[in-house]
């Protein structure tokens, strides 16, 4: 008889702590040998490929508050770290107030993958390609984090240090992603260029959000966040600043797209060349800005 064993996960011990304090303590005690997980959609693949050999996988999805999703018009949206992307996409509060986030999540992999995938996991995995991260940055997200010293809050801006690297310290667990109320009158779009129309990782991803803003000389504030074109999810700060100063016209959008082109620093990889990525950043930025502008002025 011939047995063909299925490729399997390497050996590890599965840990299910009962409280956040217990989880943080365990993760801090075991440092790089332990890894927190929720849906596992990134962690399992990397373990199977041998890229990640933790001795302990710590299941944090059943801890207090991890599955909450709450919206308040004054304080905004709280998405528990274990809320699946499908639950986020179908939540009426998200569809009504944060359609950009739903659109970005819908571009991730497949429906059955999104039953397990989470936004907090996407953020902690810290891939420059993370599709939901750009929308979170554009919407000024912050993270609720539980560590050995207790709970704290950090802005998502500045959280990413490099591919797979974040500000999280041993023992830290992201417990929720928090979005302030959306800018009044805003409109957004997520453009994803992949090797096929759906399900693939991005060659370039682009989250753009625009809103009327009297603090900006141009009268509008635009946010532009790029995926897969830098070591971290990239806020196109120069393009954003240009549009805050200059009235929104086709020429201004073209100029902002040129700035985004200059700001990004992609690499060649299996999905695309760096040169193609840069060119697509320019084209997609211009296209996204005019789409957002049209959505702002229906």
């Amino acid at each position, binding site marked *: 008889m011939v047995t063909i064993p299925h490729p399997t996960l390497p*050996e590890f011990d*599965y840990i299910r702590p009962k409280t956040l304090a217990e989880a943080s303590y365990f993760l801090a005690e075991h440092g790089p040998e332990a890894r927190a997980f929720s849906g596992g959609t990134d962690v*399992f693949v990397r373990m199977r490929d041998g890229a990640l050999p933790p001795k302990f996988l710590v299941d944090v999805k059943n801890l207090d508050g991890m599955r909450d999703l709450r919206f308040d018009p004054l304080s905004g949206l709280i998405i528990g770290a274990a809320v699946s992307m499908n639950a986020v996409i179908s939540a009426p509060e998200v569809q009504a107030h944060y359609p950009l986030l739903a659109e970005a999540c819908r571009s991730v992999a497949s429906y059955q993958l999104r039953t397990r995938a989470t936004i907090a996991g996407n953020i902690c995995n810290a891939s420059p390609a993370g599709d939901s991260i750009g929308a979170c940055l554009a919407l000024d997200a912050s993270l609720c984090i539980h560590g050995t010293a207790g709970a704290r809050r950090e802005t998502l801006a500045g959280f990413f240090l490099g591919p797979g690297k974040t500000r999280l310290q041993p023992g830290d667990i992201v417990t929720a992603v928090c979005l302030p109320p959306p800018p009044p009158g805003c409109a957004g779009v997520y453009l994803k260029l992949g090797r096929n129309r759906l399900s693939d990782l991005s060659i370039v991803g682009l989250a753009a959000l625009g809103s009327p803003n009297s603090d900006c000389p141009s009268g509008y504030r635009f946010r532009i966040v790029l995926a897969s074109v830098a070591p971290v999810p990239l806020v196109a700060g120069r393009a954003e600043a240009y549009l805050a100063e200059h009235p929104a016209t086709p020429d201004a959008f073209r100029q902002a797209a040129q700035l985004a082109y200059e700001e990004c620093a992609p690499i060649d990889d299996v999905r695309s060349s760096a040169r193609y990525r840069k060119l697509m950043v320019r084209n997609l930025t211009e296209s996204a800005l005019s789409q957002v502008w049209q959505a702002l002025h229906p």
Partner: protein
Amino acid sequence: MAMHTINLTVNGSRESLVVPSNMTLMRMLRETLALTGTKNGCSAGECGACTVLFNGEPVNSCMVLAVECDEAEIVTVEGLAHDQQLDPLQDAIIQAGGVQCGFCTPGILISARALLNRNPNPSEEEIKEALVGNLCRCTGYVRIIKSIQEAARMAAAAS
């Protein structure tokens, strides 16, 4: 490696199992419970051949740990038929010729069942989107999509 006792429901029957930490739901179904309808294609959450319902929602069973299924309700392709009657989707995919080698079929049926449960009257675009995570290398999807449309029509006519 740590072993865990889990209690769960699979296709309506209660199971009590002892599983190692690194066992996936897919391996538990195929190698412990001998439910080989669930197929292993890629072991990486890409191909959808191992799709099963976990508490009513489709998941890639290669991307779920068996130990996470404690107190869960799992439905595999073997659990779609009831009282000797195939699920209307199964009838439709046979009628439409939506099966060739059959390897993707169990996952397709589960994804399609989940789709019709949440949206009894999906558009062609919605069907395509629901099947993004189910790769078929034989039929090219046309007959698969037709069979899902037909099953939706049959269900609407029967209600």
